[in-house]
């Protein structure tokens, strides 16, 4: 058993809360990135913010988990009847047989960032109401979701920087193949915080303007936030029209902590492994959702990896110009974007990009193309040289 059925999925990002506005934004090539003031940030940059989180109230019995990241998680869970789909799966399999594997890079660290501004001047202690375990700790978001549904199965957070939200597909697949679970809530949740805004800025990787993936003038990322959830189970009874994850490939660059292998070798290995698992040839892929962060080095390395395997024909784009780079959620967000593209028979064009870098050879889309869609590949690469590629496919009878 290798193929995972996407029973249900939902995504909330700067381009919309839930699938309908997300699809509309893709259809109209609308970006959710804006130049705006956020928190106490004094950097000249744009962000992909999910509106309304400051006033969002988490469920009463989960108050201990209250932080921006878990508010975003709950907002996401409440869209597209996702929670109902989870309840149905619990009825079929039992609470013990549903896993929770979520990606995040910074979890609810914003809570500790704020708490550190309010230390007791005499003792240095943090405010008494600061709850490290349920907010800041990396596991917090999976803990929150597990308690949200009162699940009793295995759970953990994958935190491999910007590949986290893709790698959870592998965790669910392996757990299911081993017979430990029958279904899993997977995905990624990452929210705006000072650590990533100032941290990426210190590496001079943040653009002052909305990011321009694969553009000749690209000059860095725009940080966004998102919650993306996918309910997966075995694809044994998949029917025509269903979306499945048919392949996943994971690799390590073994090159550098914060820049990719210049020839895209790690990326190439991940893409090859994903195709191999899916039993597909490069020509079978109808669209590639690139990692496409809009840094000089990522886009150049990824282009080399993609063209080495696919040549220059396969339509591809980055949707980070729509959502911003949602870091630990990006892999899950973009898997869902691929699922929407497969369902609706179109390949989304990127936004923000004006002039494609002539040094880059892949077939980068600046506008949507309507075409029959059967298989899409999604790339996610992270700091530490962590690479993950997914193949999403539409089942045809």
């Amino acid at each position, binding site marked *: 058993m290798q193929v995972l059925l996407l029973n249900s999925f939902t995504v909330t990002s700067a381009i919309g809360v839930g699938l309908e506005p997300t699809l509309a934004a893709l259809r109209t090539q609308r970006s959710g990135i804006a130049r705006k003031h956020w928190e106490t940030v004094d950097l000249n940059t744009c962000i992909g913010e999910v509106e309304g989180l400051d006033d969002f109230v988490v469920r009463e019995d989960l108050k201990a988990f209250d932080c921006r990241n878990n508010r975003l998680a709950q907002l996401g869970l409440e869209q597209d009847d996702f929670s109902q789909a989870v309840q149905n799966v619990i009825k079929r399999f039992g609470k013990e047989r549903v896993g929770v594997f979520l990606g995040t890079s910074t979890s609810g660290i914003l809570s500790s960032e704020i708490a550190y501004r309010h230390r007791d001047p005499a003792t240095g202690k943090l405010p008494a109401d600061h709850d490290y375990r349920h907010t800041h700790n990396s596991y917090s978001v999976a803990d929150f979701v597990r308690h949200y549904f009162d699940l*009793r*199965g295995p759970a*953990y957070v994958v935190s491999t920087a910007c590949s986290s939200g893709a790698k959870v597909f592998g965790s669910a697949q392996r757990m299911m193949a081993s017979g430990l679970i029958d279904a899993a809530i997977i995905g990624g949740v990452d929210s705006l915080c000072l650590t990533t805004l100032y941290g990426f800025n210190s590496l001079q990787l943040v653009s002052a303007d909305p990011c321009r993936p694969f553009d000749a003038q690209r000059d860095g990322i725009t940080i966004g936030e998102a919650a993306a959830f996918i309910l997966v189970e075995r694809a044994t009874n998949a029917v025509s029209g269903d979306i499945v994850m048919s392949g996943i490939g994971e690799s390590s660059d073994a090159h550098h902590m914060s820049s990719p292998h210049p020839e895209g070798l790690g990326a190439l290995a991940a893409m090859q492994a994903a195709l191999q698992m899916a039993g597909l040839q490069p020509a079978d892929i109808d669209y590639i959702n690139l990692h496409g962060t809009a840094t000089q080095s990522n886009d150049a390395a990824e282009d080399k990896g993609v063209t080495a395997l696919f040549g220059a024909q396969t339509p591809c784009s980055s949707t980070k110009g729509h959502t911003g780079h949602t870091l630990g959620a990006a892999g899950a967000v973009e898997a869902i974007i691929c699922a929407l593209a497969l369902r609706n028979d179109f390949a989304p064009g990127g936004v923000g990009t004006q002039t494609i870098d002539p040094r880059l050879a892949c077939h980068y889309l600046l506008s949507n193309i309507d075409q029959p869609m059967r298989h899409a590949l999604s790339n996610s690469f992270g700091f530490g040289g962590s690479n993950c590629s997914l193949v999403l496919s539409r089942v045809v009878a």
Partner: protein
Amino acid sequence: MNALQIHVDGIGLLGPGLFGWTQSCDVLTGKVPLTLTPAQLPPVKALPPAERRRVGVPIKLSMAIGFEAARNANADPSQLSTVFSSTGGDCDNCHNILETLASDDRAVSPTRFHNSVHNAPSGYWSIATACMEPSTSLCAYDATFAAALLEAATQANHSGKPCLLLAYDTAYPEPLYALRPIPHVLGIAMVLNPVNTPASRALLTLKLGTSAATTMPETDLEALRTRIPAARGLPLMQLLAKETSGSVVIEYLDALSLAIGVQV
């Protein structure tokens, strides 16, 4: 409930009074008493000097236990997929970034930032060993050891190839120490192999359930077990040190636990 089986080929262990697998066996079998002397973390010779200077405790610790486990398993580290796991990652580094962000000058050091990702030890390990195999990095708060053991066992079985599990925790300084009081640095690594080879020391059978976790009769070891998430694996280490078949239960999430049968 289905069971999952995996061979243990090699072990690495470092912690207070636990200085590598051979010496730790003497402590775990009661031949020598546990002294809470901090483990000396060797310099990371496998990294280039420029990188070596930048690494904090979790990277030194994971390198030390990872190389020990691979050596004891006669395994080539460049060929092993890896599962890194820690409840808090680099706690010193995190504290330093939080202090910087709360100050008037928020200029975070670029090195501190890229070392802040939970998978930093995995990134440095892959560079040090020239390993391009899959690697993941997990957290499940106090349940991190059991979560990582499950992930590594399923990874190895699914790929048909050995997988290196690394579980390591470090301490936060104050003020976060008060909220997450992990008193000592401790790490456990195991090379897990789906294939029975001459390197196999024991066959583990993993099963999820709700049995109570195994406690350790030695109060000093029990104190480590309960206070350091990675040390939740110590009852398993004790059984492996004794080279006797048996079973232990390791706590996982809430009422859920991981029962481990050990067959030597």
